């Protein structure tokens, strides 16, 4: 398995509180991604990074921000959590962004916003 860890693995929080999820990789891959997984929607891309300090929005980026200060770490922040952000969050990494982009996924973080 690719060396990807996510922390925390489970979190329960209250509406309006800030939450930060961490993705850490030991593969030295350039590209990192945050997805959310919801029933009936599959996986949807929140944000991605194509290098240190280089990030861009995915299809469901509203209410989320990201930061990448080191190659190995990609942080996802919910500035003010809402119940609609209850989900399972997956981090992924890839070596390239091109046509042969094969992504490897972390174990996921289950977030519940009450």
């Amino acid at each position: 398995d690719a060396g990807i860890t996510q922390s925390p693995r489970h979190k329960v929080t209250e509406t309006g509180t800030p939450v930060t999820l961490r993705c850490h990789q030991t593969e030295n891959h350039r590209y990192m991604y945050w997805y959310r997984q919801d029933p009936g929607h599959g996986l949807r891309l929140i944000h991605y990074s194509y290098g240190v300090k280089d990030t861009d929005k995915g299809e469901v980026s509203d209410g989320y921000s990201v930061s990448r200060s080191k190659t190995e770490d990609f942080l996802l922040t919910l500035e003010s959590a809402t119940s609609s952000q209850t989900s399972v969050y997956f981090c992924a990494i890839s070596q390239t962004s091109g046509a042969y982009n094969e992504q490897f996924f972390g174990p996921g973080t289950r977030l519940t916003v009450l």
Partner: protein
Amino acid sequence: AQSVSQHNHHVILSEAASLELGCNYSYGGTVNLFWYVQYPGQHLQLLLKYFSGDPLVKGIKGFEAEFIKSKFSFNLRKPSVQWSDTAEYFCAVIVNTGFQKLVFGTGTRLLVSP
């Protein structure tokens, strides 16, 4: 926008039955195609991928998929399923324009009864 459709949301089979899960995508250009599997409580793992060449692709655990360009399809097959194949299966597409993001289908939940 590009999209991926998985029409079977839930499939229930008995052990030894044959499996075919449908996947259709909506893009007329060059695509690369993937099937991922998510076993209960686990992260996504790559089953197989198609980049070019032989449209019949063999993956791990006896799975295969056939790329039919004229039908915009990439159906997943297995001749004889096992109880351990119980999982959720996701089809995904990379479209070869711009930053090549992975677009996922909504998933098919397979239950194999012993």
